[in-house]
């Protein structure tokens, strides 16, 4: 029997997204191994893990946004069977952080995983009606086939990596 977490991990790999499992205790160390500097980030809305005290620059300037090699943000949900993460926009600019740099590192809590799109839409519907009404279902790196062949890394990230914080 494949667990939801394992399905999510397999799906992420299928959509060219790196996967690392970690725990709240090891989070800082794990993050340090994955990010490429200079890194910018939007603070995680989680109690157990934080970007404070890491090499990630919070509240970047436009120049820092433009020059960052990596952006770290949280995901509100992870959809197991698609390897999709739900990225909510924040007034602090999480949308920009996960979009401009070449590498996007997304932090997902195991408890925020759902099995499929139907469950994701149920959860998102609630969130949208409660004011969290701005989200991107992101699946893998940005891509185009418009230049005659498939290329990863167009206007958005070239590389995506998910850090899953176990419950």
């Amino acid at each position, binding site marked *: 029997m494949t667990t939801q977490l394992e399905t999510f991990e397999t799906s992420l790999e299928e959509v060219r997204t790196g996967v690392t499992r970690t725990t709240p205790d090891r989070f800082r160390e794990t993050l340090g191994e994955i990010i490429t500097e200079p890194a910018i980030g939007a603070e995680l809305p989680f109690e157990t893990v934080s970007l404070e005290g890491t090499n990630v620059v919070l509240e970047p*300037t436009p120049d820092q946004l433009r020059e960052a090699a990596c952006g770290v943000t949280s995901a509100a949900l992870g959809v197991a069977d698609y390897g999709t993460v739900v990225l909510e926009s924040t007034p602090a600019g999480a949308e920009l952080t996960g979009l401009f740099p070449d590498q996007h590192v997304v932090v997902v809590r195991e408890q925020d995983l759902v099995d499929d799109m139907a469950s994701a839409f149920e959860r998102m519907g609630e969130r949208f009606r409660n004011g969290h009404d701005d*989200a991107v279902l992101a699946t893998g790196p*940005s891509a185009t*086939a418009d230049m005659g062949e498939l290329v990863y890394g167009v206007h958005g990230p070239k590389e995506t990596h998910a850090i899953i914080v176990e419950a």
Partner: protein
Amino acid sequence: MSSERSQKAERIRHIMETEGDSVERNARGFNEGRYESVDRLEDYDAYKDRARAIKEDAIENLPSLIEQVRETVEANGGTVYLADDAADANRYVRELAREREAETVVKSKSMTTEEIDLNEHLETEGCEVWETDLGEFVLQVADEAPSHLVAPAIHQSREEIAHLFNEQFDPAEKLETAEELTAFAREYLGERIQDADIGVTGANFVTADTGTIALVTSEGNARKSIAVPDTHVAVAGVEKIVPTFEDLQPFVELIARSGTGQDITSYVSLFSPPVDTPTVNFDSDEPIDSDASDRDFHLVLLDNGRMDMRDDDQLRETLYCIRCSACANSCANFQSVGGHVFGGETYSGGIATGWEAGVHGQESADEFNDLCTGCSRCVNQCPVKIDIPWINTVVRDRRNRGADDGDLDFLVEGLTPDEEPAGLDLQKRFFGNFETLAKLGSTTAPVSNWFAGTPPSRYLMERVLGIDSRRELPTFERETLVEWFRNRDEPRPVDAEYHAVVYPDLYTNHVRTERGKAAVRTLEALGVAVEVPDVASSGRAPLSQGMIATAEEHAREVRDDLDAHIDAGYDVVVIEPSDLAMFRGEYERLLEEDRYESLAERSYELFEYIFGLFENGASAEALRDAESIGASTDVAYHSHCQQRTLELETYTTTVLERQGFDVLTSDVECCGMAGSFGYKSEYYDLSVDVGERLQAQFEMPDATNRTVVASGTSCLEQLDSMLTRQPRHPITLVDPKR
């Protein structure tokens, strides 16, 4: 051939030479990807049903949904403008640009803004407009129109794009690889986005209950075009509204799979503007900070003919379209020519006829509408189940009726006892009345065959009717199948459990009588009491020419002719798949409900019927099998396009396999002949190009020594013209008496 026809043929040849390879590679790639991706989706059919139901409901309630969107978007802090037409929408966006003193406008991909030519209008206002989707950017640089709904530059190869960019931008180092081209475009457009005053997007969906816009993208340009500038304008057709947020789910499951064959695209943006993300001033040194009130959002809902389409019983379905491109990718003709031939001003592929007729006027579909042969391969691929061939037929019919009076009508007079207006294109009228010709052909055979084949006749046929002289004409049999059946001296089975009419379709009755006789012998050997009554032709021929009134007349005659047999409990066995597709499909639109249902329920494809007899205990021993045939028992089978749409291919392969044959099947969408299409001089080369894909499959090492069988008349003719092997109908393999 007339000069109009020869010009059209020349243009098609030119596009096939210059764009055909790229289009074919990409469209077939998407098509294969779609088959694989929808196969992985467990509830594919259920999702299609839901998507269809949501769209039906939304279009039904559109006026109140528009009002609801206005309320929710305005409550969120945005503005809604309902634009009557293109000019109205363009004026609104221009005025906005003027107010904002906008110098740079960045756009993400939007077919609706292509429809209204927004870029040109903004440029008149003095704005620099940049397409940030890479495909659209290529078109902007090349000054070309989209050739595909989803991948607008599908006709350009990497080499051509590299050449274009190197010429246009003269970069320090010549660009060559797709990676280099992408990096260049990202850099170049990235600077434009940073400077942008307004971001323009389309919308794949708009939800009425939350005022949410959904955008399905892959490159990230739409996200940036929304996030960076402080003003966002979304231009969307009114038909993009769905009632609730949750209604988005089936579409998210279906849209990418149906389009490019991905399970999902990289990004599905769902946002209820104005968005929370802070705007970025790239000249500032201060941390990026939010003040949501800085943002301005305008939703321009475009009518431009859509509300009239909604009132039009025949065109309404077009509004359910989510512009996924499945109909284009699964279309054999589209795979050869792309949207620059099979497309209008803006839209391309099968559904383009509905869109162009609706938003740009019926006549705008004239140039390309005939490219839909009615093969129906797109029907099952459409995620909202639009009957795309029917829309094409209806528009063709309306255009036939709008045509000017012709002065050569007397040439086909007497051959054309149809219900159509004077002035109908002679070629269409000729093919639409094939029944009359076939009757005359049999009555006067072999003189008719000899006469039709003489050089002066072929010359006239080509010049006046546009019948390509490179095509072999059908040879009419003096004795029709009906006459053969009436004249033969065979005892009828007594106490038969099954009674069936073998439907004498036009070709089986007059041209390929052998397959009809084989069908009769096969069924009788399986214990069926068979009748071959004189029944009218199905109306497929006139329908394919857009002669709906004539087709309806045929449908009534067929139903009347079969009345007594249906009342007496007979089944109707149909050899020609395109006629069965009429009985089960189009007749629903042409006959009263009970007249349609009683025929549709009793109609069977020949091998479907044989399979059913086997399942009910009939002995296969009475039929011939592979062993008794002596020759090669390996067959290569090409099913008919409409037969595959009805999911009836499997019965032929199963029956042949039971009889010991080793069956290899083709997987092309259509043979390219498609009834009369391949006979028409303007489409001859295209028809051959499409057919070559089938030819290539049957000339592969694993197929080259196989006996070739095909179910459709036109498929057999196309195969016959391409292969050195003589193709045959599969029934002749199991026919007990040969």
